[in-house]
């Protein structure tokens, strides 16, 4: 037993004595230029067919080429691995010319790689996990040398926004079961600006610059993505210089960066819209009613009144610390200038409780003795449920404000908290809700988000989900959607899309609240230059495409000096702690020895 205690003491010494050693920082003159990016989410999979988390798709965007990427200035699709493309007059056949470039292992990139990638997804359900819907409309994909031909089932204007990374056929066709493949083989075979060289689960991913990248090698040598579980620790990490850049910050964390002279607070328009989903009489895809939505919400006037009763500016100030834009539009945020529609004049709904009350009075919803309105036929009081997620502080706060405002209308709102799976089920399939919080991060091409309000997205009669965001089914909206699909002329298509947004705004199956800003921060003593996307006040980490990370430039003197300081303090404190422990342990051990001596007597 004594030995055991002695060993324990020794172990403790070892553990604490570890402080005494500085984490060896080889600060040679030609130190590699390394930029470290923090993320508050860990990689779910290195296999792009499976990965669904945002951090994973970002990293994959830095590693692999796509058919097209959003242009860094206009966000319009521009050539990536596809140099050029043509469309047949009926819009059903697309022919891409694949760039003559090389994979990072030296093999040539051909159309066969792209064809293999898409065909794999079409034929193998396991490969559909991440981006399945992107190939749903593909009838066939064939390759001939550098020419890739994609035949579609129906015309699709968003074809160039295809989110599927092109994978190297020669390296991936050997994989047996793609659904179980981890892709933990390094260095990875890539075609983008970076090559993954190491991934430690839940810890970090290391990417080396691809020297043979067809646009030219990136200006830094290494890009590291470091995962944090704890956002507060990530902020501390940025302030200390453990990481150089972090994106997707919550407003309070962003504000915590204020006052640090080495940190640039990067606050720009975001790609997300936050809105309310109103159960306006949910139906299934065969038009049968489903769920238990409040009948009053079927009346567009009631939905309109609710819209008037929301002080969006106040929500922005209170819930988002002012770091958002009140929504005077619909589900497409203003950062997409081409597609953004804003309500003006008559149509614009602005905070006006009196007007909201008048709308309800005129429509026959009378207030009872308790101040709560009832249906015109007196059958039911206007008591709505508001569904939010558990563990979502922003939604919690939002719910409390809405409750306060609706009370002034004579409407009771009670908050219902659901975990994410239950939430999705009740607000997306079974329609067991009145009003629910919702939101969507919109891609440069808004087709995906527009499609979430189509009739066909409603659940089937047997209750299978179709991915609706509103249970909306409106002939006018449907017609506009079909029209924009076929319209390959961008400005004309944008006009149609704006009409769709207007329809959503006035009919109010969803009520947009605000567009949260994209909040990021980076150290200017480490990062000399970074180009946002779009270049004019755009996003860094949160943006689509690889521009910001391809154009990263490190401060040449490297951060070694700052780190040395830290280690020196560490050494001193470590030595002191170590000495104290040694004294303690020594005392302990000498007394023990004495006992042994006593034993021998």
């Amino acid at each position, binding site marked *: 037993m004594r030995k055991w205690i002695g060993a324990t003491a020794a172990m403790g010494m070892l553990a604490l004595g570890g402080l005494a050693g500085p984490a060896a920082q080889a600060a040679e003159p030609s130190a590699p230029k390394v930029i470290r990016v923090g993320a508050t989410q860990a990689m779910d999979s290195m296999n792009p067919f499976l990965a669904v988390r945002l951090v994973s798709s970002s990293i994959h965007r830095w590693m692999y080429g796509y058919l097209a990427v959003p242009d860094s200035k206009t966000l319009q699709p521009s050539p990536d691995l596809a140099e050029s493309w043509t469309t047949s007059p009926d819009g059903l056949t697309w022919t891409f010319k694949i760039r003559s470039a090389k994979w990072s292992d030296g093999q040539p990139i051909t159309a066969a790689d792209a064809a293999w990638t898409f065909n794999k997804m079409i034929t193998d359900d396991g490969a559909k996990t991440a981006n399945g819907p992107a190939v749903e409309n593909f009838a066939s994909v064939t390759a001939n040398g550098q020419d890739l031909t994609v035949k579609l089932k129906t015309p699709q204007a968003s074809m160039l926004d295809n989110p599927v990374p092109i994978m190297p056929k020669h390296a991936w066709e050997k994989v047996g079961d793609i659904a179980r493949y981890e892709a933990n083989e390094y260095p990875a075979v890539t075609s983008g600006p970076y090559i993954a060289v190491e991934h430690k689960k839940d810890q970090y991913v290391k990417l080396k610059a691809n020297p043979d990248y067809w646009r030219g090698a990136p200006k830094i040598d290494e890009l590291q993505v470091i995962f944090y579980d704890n*956002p*507060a620790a990530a*902020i*501390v990490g940025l302030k200390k210089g453990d990481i150089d850049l972090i994106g997707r910050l*919550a407003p*309070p*964390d962003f*504000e*915590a960066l204020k006052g640090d002279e080495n940190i640039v607070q990067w606050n720009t328009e975001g790609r997300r819209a936050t809105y309310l989903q109103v159960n306006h009489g949910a139906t299934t895809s065969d038009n049968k009613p489903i769920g238990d939505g409040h009948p009053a919400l079927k009346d567009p006037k009631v939905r309109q009144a609710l819209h008037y009763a929301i002080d969006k500016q106040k929500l922005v100030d*209170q819930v988002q*610390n002012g770091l958002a834009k009140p929504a005077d539009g619909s589900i497409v945020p203003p950062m997409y200038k081409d597609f953004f529609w804003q309500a003006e004049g008559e149509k614009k709904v602005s905070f006006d409780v009196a007007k909201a009350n008048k709308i309800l009075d005129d429509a026959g919803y009378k207030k009872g003795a308790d101040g709560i309105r009832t249906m015109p036929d007196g059958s039911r009081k206007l008591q709505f449920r508001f569904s939010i997620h*558990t*563990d979502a*502080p922003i939604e919690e*706060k939002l719910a*409390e*404000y809405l*409750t*306060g405002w609706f009370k002034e209308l004579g409407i009771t709102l009670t908050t219902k*908290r*659901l*975990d994410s799976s*239950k939430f999705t089920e009740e607000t997306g399939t079974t329609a067991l809700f009145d009003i629910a919080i919702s939101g969507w991060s919109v891609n440069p091409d808004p087709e995906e988000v527009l499609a979430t309000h189509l009739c066909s997205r409603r659940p089937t009669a047997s209750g299978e989900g179709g991915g609706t965001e509103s249970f909306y089914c409106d002939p006018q909206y449907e017609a506009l959607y079909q029209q924009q699909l076929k319209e390959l002329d961008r400005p004309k298509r944008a006009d149609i899309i704006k009409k769709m947004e207007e329809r959503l705004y006035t009919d109010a199956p969803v009520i947009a609240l605000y567009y949260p800003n994209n909040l990021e921060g980076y150290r200017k003593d480490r990062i000399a230059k970074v180009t946002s996307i779009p270049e004019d006040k755009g996003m860094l980490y949160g943006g689509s495409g690889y521009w910001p990370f391809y154009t990263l430039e490190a401060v040449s003197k490297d951060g070694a000096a700052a780190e040395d300081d830290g280690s020196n303090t560490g050494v001193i404190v470590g030595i002191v702690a170590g000495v104290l422990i040694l004294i303690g342990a020594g005392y302990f051990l000498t007394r023990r020895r004495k006992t042994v001596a006593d034993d021998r007597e």
Partner: protein
Amino acid sequence: MSITWTRRRLAFGRFWASFRTQRAGVIGLAILLLAVLLAVIAPLFIDAGVTNVVSGTGEKLSPPSWDDPLGTDESGRSVLLMIWWGSRTSLLIGFLAALLSMVIGTVLGIAAGHFRGWIGAIVMRITDWFLVLPSLVTALVLAAILGGSTVTIIAAIGVTSWPSTARLIRAQTLAVEARPYIERSQALGGGHWHITTRHVLPNVAPLLLASTTLEVASAIVTESTLAFLGVSANKTSWGTMLRGSYDWGAATSGAWWYILVPGLCIVIVVMAFTLCGRALENVLNPRLRKAV
């Protein structure tokens, strides 16, 4: 009856005299009585409105001042008032979870001690099984499955914390039933119910009190941990306040009052329950009495 009463009063007098010598215990008792009193009278002064964000009038995350002696949170609500109102949830969950755990523990403990044969064996098997389950992990799983509400949180904590009480009560039951008067009572025709409620229960009750007091302490800590991990009753409690301070970046914005105050409240109240419970144990368990 009067004899019983006199005897009990005397016993209580002896107990109190002995408890009073436990200085830490008395301090603990005073603190927890104060905490309970404050929680009970809170509705006379404030209502749930103090936890409502719309009514938050102060500056966001402003440091302690005359208007808000303990500063404000991310919505400009007074931390002091929220602590006061939140104490009701924290203490309620603490007490009810401990009560639940005590009831389960007592029933099963006495059953295991009283019915020796296979019933006792089975009950002990179950108790031992629950005893080794990692309680926090189990409570998290239960709360995640049942969904967050005051009742499920109480159930999750109560269901995972009773086994130590059961073991304690079983040992005590065995000791009590070894006494000769139990045999006499059995001979006189006293049934299981009579023996367990009239003889065993009164004898184990004092120790039960001590163990329940300690149980409240750990239930309050568990509640705050569950709240921190995202499983909460959706009402303002000290645990949810700490979660709020974490969610709203109080640490990185330097809002120390928002982090320290709820945490210190937990520490103080838990400490008070612990001191009180240990003092009770010292008084009631002669084996430990010499321990001061």
